[in-house]
């Protein structure tokens, strides 16, 4: 077989995997009984979810007073978690949409899991939107639906309404993209399955035939959806940043927020994908599909976006000083040196300093370090949102209202809930759906596999 492998590019699939090997390696996890590791992981996630659900129910039953918020700090962990989860989701869309448009072939092994992560992350984020409301049972009032409550309508001036549109659009497009991309693989599983599984996967695969026409349409749809999703990568977090940027609160009222938030979102999202990938790689023994080259590429993007947010942090400070506005100046100085300085220090260390280790090619391919840095980056990005939200609010215009924020068990419990939910959903996904896009990996096998020409199929 004539090969077009570039001599300078690393292989994307190692160890001479054939098309059949790919099918076997990926489908095995869907078809076999759950492994012991999966069971353990699932049990842990379920326990976390149940504990978290207890706190969510308590929050709903008793009121938001179970959180640590106060008259001055009206948002803290709730919106921090919301922005954090939405941000994490961005990597999935970026990988599947933008990298598809740029014809980045290395995305094939990671895009499925990344898209699933997007969806689950958006679900977690949405749960905080609902949770943070004083009367969550009326959450649907934020939708512009015809009603008989009088001439009541939503306030299109409110960034929260923009959020509702942004997040719901994002969620539906992401779901669609993920599902359409999965259809050929679902058909593969259907073809190998028997009994009730065959019926279920049969329904899910939408009568996929694998004909040339079908493939051509599939490619077209994928391209259109990636075209649709691409602006979403930028718009969703831009709109989320408007929640803050359009306000009058010093530290929030900042024009740099849209690009800064998008970069931060991609940063944290890639870190999360990295974490999930590394776990899946080990647990599902997918070392040949998620290679060191993948990890290295991810690390490069993490370093790049980490540096972008670093510049944003410094720019904010500069602009605050340059503006000459006393409240702005104080707000930023207070971030770094005020009572919550430790959160600012955590943010700076985790987000700006820690990814710089990846300037070393050797360290970029160090799996343990990659995992640790990815975790650190996500901690840092959580702190970034916390810093923006809480340190701006807790000392704003009138010193008489200045307070401090101390989380209570409700804050922690509800955050834990989102981890339980995310973990549970992700594990269910990894058990019942193909975690790697078989069809696309097979498509790059020819060009990027380590397989030597002449090896038997």
């Amino acid at each position, binding site marked *: 077989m004539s090969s077009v492998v570039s001599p300078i590019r690393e292989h994307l699939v190692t160890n001479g995997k054939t098309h059949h090997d790919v099918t076997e390696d990926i489908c095995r996890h869907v078809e076999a009984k759950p492994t012991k590791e999966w069971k353990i992981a699932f049990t842990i996630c379920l326990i976390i979810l149940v504990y978290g659900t207890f706190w969510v129910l308590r929050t709903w039953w008793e009121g938001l007073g179970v959180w640590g918020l106060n008259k001055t700090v009206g948002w803290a962990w709730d919106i921090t978690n919301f922005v954090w989860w939405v941000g994490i989701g961005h990597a999935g869309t970026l990988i599947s949409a933008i990298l598809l448009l740029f014809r980045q072939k290395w995305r094939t092994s990671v895009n499925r899991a990344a898209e699933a992560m997007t969806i689950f992350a958006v679900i977690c984020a949405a749960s905080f939107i609902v949770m943070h409301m*004083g009367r969550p049972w009326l959450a649907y*009032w934020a939708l512009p639906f015809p009603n008989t409550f009088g001439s009541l309508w939503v306030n299109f001036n409110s960034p*929260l309404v923009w959020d509702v549109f942004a997040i719901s659009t994002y969620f539906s497009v992401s779901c669609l993209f993920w599902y359409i991309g999965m259809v050929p693989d679902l058909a593969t599983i259907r073809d190998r399955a028997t009994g009730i599984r065959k019926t279920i996967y049969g329904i899910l695969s939408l009568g996929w035939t694998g004909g040339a026409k079908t493939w051509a349409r599939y490619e077209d749809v994928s391209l259109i959806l990636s075209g649709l999703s691409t602006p979403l990568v930028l718009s969703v977090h831009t709109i989320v940043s408007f929640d803050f940027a359009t306000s009058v*609160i010093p530290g929030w009222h900042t024009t740099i927020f849209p690009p800064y938030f998008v970069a931060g979102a991609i940063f944290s999202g890639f870190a999360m994908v990295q974490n999930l990938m590394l776990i899946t790689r080990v647990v599902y023994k997918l070392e040949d599909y998620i290679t060191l080259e993948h990890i290295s590429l991810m690390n490069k993007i993490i370093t790049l976006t980490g540096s972008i947010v670093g510049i944003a942090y410094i720019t904010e400070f500069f602009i605050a000083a340059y503006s000459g506005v006393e409240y702005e*100046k104080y707000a930023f*100085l207070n971030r770094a040196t005020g009572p919550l300085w430790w959160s600012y220090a955590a943010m700076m260390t985790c987000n700006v300093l820690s990814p710089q280790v990846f300037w070393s090619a050797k360290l970029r391919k160090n799996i343990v370090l990659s995992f640790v840095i990815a975790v650190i980056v996500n901690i840092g990005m959580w702190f970034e949102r916390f810093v923006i939200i809480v340190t701006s609010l807790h000392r704003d215009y009138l*010193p008489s209202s200045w307070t401090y924020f101390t989380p209570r068990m409700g804050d922690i419990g509800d955050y834990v809930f989102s981890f339980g939910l995310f973990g549970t959903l992700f594990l269910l996904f990894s058990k019942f759906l193909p975690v790697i896009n078989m069809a696309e990996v097979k498509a790059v096998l020819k060009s990027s596999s380590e397989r030597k020409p002449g090896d038997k199929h």
Partner: protein
Amino acid sequence: MEDTNKRYWKGIEELKNDINVVKNADKEFNFDEIEGGTYRRDFLKVLGFGMAAVSLAACDAPVRHTIPYLNKPVDVEPGIPNYYASSYVQGGDYASILVKTVEGRPIKIEGNSLSTISKGCLSAQVHGSLLSLYDNDRLRTPQKKGKEISWSSLDKEVMAGLSSASNIRIVSNTILSPTFKKVIGDFATKYPSAKLVQYDASSAYPLVQANEKSFGKAAIPDYKFENADVIVGINADFLGAWISPLEYNAGWVTNRKVSSAKEGKKAMSRHYHYEPTMTLTGANADYRGRYKPSQEGLLVANLYNKVSEKLGQGSPLAVQKADFEFLDKCAADLVKSGARSLIVIGSSDVSTLVLVNALNALLGTVGTTIDFGNTVNYRQGNDAEMAQFVADLNSGTVDAVIFVDANPVYDHLAGPEIEKGLKKAKLSVAISDRADETASNCTYIALNTHFLENWGDANPKTGYYSLIQPTISNIFKSRQPEASILKWSGSDTAYHYYLKSNWQSNILGGKSWTQALHDGVHELGAAPVAGASFIGNIQEAAAQATAKKGNGLELHVFENTTIGTGKNANNPWLQETPDPISKVTWENTAAFSLKTATELGIAQGDWVKVSAGSTSVELPVLIQPGQPDGTVAIARGYGRTKAGKAGNVGVDVLPLLRGAKGAGNFWADGIQVEKTKSGYTLAQTQTHETYMGRKAVVQETILSEYVKNVKAGRFEPKIATSEGPKRPNTITMWNGHEKKNHSWGMVIDLNTCTGCAACVVSCQAENNIPVVGKAEVARAREMHWVRIDRYYSSDAPRETGYNPNGYKAMEVASDNPEVIFQPMMCQHCSNAPCETVCPVLATTHSSEGLNQMTYNRCVGTRYCANNCPYKVRRFNWFKYFENDDFDYAFNNELGRMVINPEVTVRSRGVIEKCSMCVQRIQAGKLVAKKEKRPLKDGDIKLACSSSCPTGCITFGDMNDPESEISKLLAHEKEGRAFHMLEEINVQPQLSYLVKVRNKDKEDSKVV
């Protein structure tokens, strides 16, 4: 039009004029024809009934006693409030009030503007007293040894006991009521051994004694602050707690108001204040000096010497020379103003008081600002008689004692002895509304009423009479003290008639009883101002006053504005009202200066054991700027043990005074302090003390600058634009709101706001604001719609750059700071940041300039609260009514009677905030509409503005050029008026007026 005579018919029968058709012509559907059987419509009816019957049977619907009036009382219109004039009398505290009742239920206390004493203003305590009516901890029936007893048996047993008693005492706080005194006279006729003993928890007996020694007049004169150009207060919190604060507020503020109008007044009195802890009055003084309690006599003597030296009159006192802050300046100013000065002192030492009297006499103020022609009756307590009573009780000579609404076991220094002695009395009766510290030691509790259930009267000062009328029938099986004493003296007359006949024969002088009852007050007018000549021995007084030397740490015990002596401690409104100075709620603290605390190794957040001799109390530490070094100040009135659920908080400090031997009445020396624990959060509503040099927030100036330029102290920011710097209000992206009819606004004069918190409680009562309790206040979740921001000055230079240490230094208050109070409520911004961000339009702008909140549309995102630059929006973190976690008034049926039916009780999860009393605005407009006339300025009064004792809040329609607010703004717009945070151009409907201090430039801390 041409009549076509065309006729339509519904069927052939109608055309034929069938008899049945004619008969049923008026019925649309004729079911009479269809008889028997169940048809479609009937089926539905039966089904519906069946469903209803089943569901009705399934639930046991609670019986609601909502019964329409069979015969409507003449004055009661459902939904229309009635106002009755009455009086608030609590011991010697007095205010003339109007009680707003809705369907026979008092829901608000307002000031009675017909009274020349309280002039329509009220204090926080008076507003709060309404809630005590619905106090669930009140007893329901009279009691004997903790068990229910009927009134008839109680009366029989008590009268039997009284008849056999040989030595009867009636112990009471000051009795202002002339009729009650007559009743007691009758009682004494029947029981000749009976004697009335009056005492006051905050006694002014030393003052009376000193006046007798100095002027030969055993009375408290009328202090005329309005006649004073220089006021020197020494430990007399006359704006907050001393004798008659409401009256003194009105007098004090007369010379504190300035106007930027061309011919407006630009003079102010100068107020010096010396005190051993920061009080409301000290915080409002122009010059505030500190002293240790033991130095009181020394301070007065030194001031006397300086004044007499400057005047060249009087003989110098042979006392040690001591230096106090601003004392030279104070003496010079006193000399300059001469007779138009006033020195008041809240000392418990007779000789010091005599010295002050001598100083006043030296300056000639007696007869100008001190009026012996009119004396006040607020404090009639006689400490000597009380001491005699305690001795007699313990020696067993007193065998029957009746406590009339008095609780000396708790609030008198001899409390424990009284408790012990009570066991020796054969008959002990407490006329009390609860089994408090005293009543629980008595055999009988003759259940007392709340004053809103009473008939009564008061004679607060010479020539002033006031009536009390019931505004609700007795809620429990209670009887007012006057009626009980009347009954026990053998009379069967109802007290109402007794009162009326007494007034008609002795007080009214032929005037109409009905009119007096309607007005609430009956004023004969003040007698001419009279002086008195000083006859005291000044050298002897000076020697005695300066004889006391304090050693070590000194303790100062004071009363705060909200809780006072603890009589009304069981009042969640008052407990949750932050102390005007410390902003602490629900407890008292041990206040230290930063320096002393550092020396003692303690800090805020610690608890300390404060010991005097062998007794000690444990309480949290407060770092109080302005506290003299080497002292600790603790408020009394806390630490009740039998007040009730809300009242049993804090620590009783009186045991410390009892333990300390040899010191004055309300101070002690040789105090030991020991840290016991740390990591405690005080329930403070404001934790940051300084205003960080933010000139857009706090704007102040000094009088000499203001005289030169009425805009002195104004901060007028400009925004850089391409066309050069511009005022913020000229740059906007908004179109503004049209305010065609009214434009409601408020102007708050920072110069006259004393921070007394009367508006806070008034607003709480008017707007059904829930009480959230200590833990929630500590979490910064209090619900008050109006708060009073209190800022201390800082000695640090104003940092505007990027030096973190500069800002940190600004966070530290001055050692002896200047204080500014700033009432803060919704500013009703025309470019409201909250309105744009609400996703569901729950907060919108009215056509009258109000920022309105639609509770039932709110989904509770709190975005509005975050985006509010003034942080005035409050979120319902929990359900605050019918919730056992918040067991205050809203958690019991009785307490909920206080709810104002005009205002929604907010549910959990919604935002609330100041509505500018929109219900009052609507009611006012409705009245005008019904009377077919335009709304007049003054028709509508807000809960806050109407209660302010200094009238610092002006409310009105800014569209009406004739309104007070428009006239005020007309000249203050180019003078003192400013919008808070002008840079962000939210264009509030509220303006503030710059604070002017009557201080010399070199003493001012304004940066």
